[in-house]
């Protein structure tokens, strides 16, 4: 598998580290215990397109948001995660 880093270009998988699901959003302060439990522990086991955080630690050290199909490993988009490379991030 190869990932096209928006900063570096196409690189081999070995330069990247997988963090996990990019979907969960930290609940507001004062959220219920169920919401926090869901955020911390519960993950969907998607057969299809998922959003994931990957870290280009063996390269430019940017965090990336990767859209990947878990059935085919096809990667349809790679974007800088919020906070990575101030100039290129819209979020």
């Amino acid at each position: 598998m190869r990932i096209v880093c928006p900063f570096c270009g196409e690189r081999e998988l070995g330069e990247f580290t997988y963090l996990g699901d990019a979907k969960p959003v930290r609940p507001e302060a004062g959220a219920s215990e169920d919401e926090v439990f869901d955020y911390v522990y519960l993950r969907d086991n998607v057969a299809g397109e998922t959003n994931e955080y990957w870290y280009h630690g063996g390269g430019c050290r940017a965090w990336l948001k990767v859209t990947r199909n878990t059935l085919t490993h096809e990667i349809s988009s790679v974007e800088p995660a919020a906070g990575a490379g101030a100039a290129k991030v819209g979020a």
Partner: protein
Amino acid sequence: MVEFSWAPRSPLEHALVTGAHGTRGIEAGVSLTEIRNFDLIQVMARRGKGAELAKAAKARFGVTAPDAPKAVQGKDATLIWSGPDQFFVLSAGGKHTLQTLVPALSGPASLSDQSHARVLISISGVKARAMLAKLSSIDLHVGAFLIGAAAATSMDHTSVTLWRGNDRPDGLAVFNLLVFATFAESLWHTLLDSAAEYGVAISHSEELA
């Protein structure tokens, strides 16, 4: 009473043995030269200050700092891309030290002195690309990785900054490698192993190519 010596020493002082290595009796296919006594400053734009840093860098170095994986030759310095909104300033002879760059760039950027935190190795020779191909997945063909091309990448699981400098007088490509000081000896041995079959000429120098 204990006496301390603060003279800077190369992290490769023990590992680097000047002369021939590997296959003998042939012209060395790979030249490995450690460049010593350089000034290396990492410059990272503060959040939202990328454009301001670009302006300040242009005024200081006379060239546009790289905003993509490239190495740019400026006034008395090479500017090497090291990640989004950041680059290295490589120079020698005290022309661009932390002390002289802080007044010019610290408004829009954070600076940190990496002069003694990195080892700089220059790799060339007719077998340089063959030897690097064992360690890197980047296409280093002279037609693909042009002069001034750069990459933040890994070799043998070690983070390196790699860029192609100006060709040697005999027309052969030169690849420059910055590696963390504490990983340098390990990577050095890997480079030697990779190059041994081609014959290696080992040296060190204080000349920035």
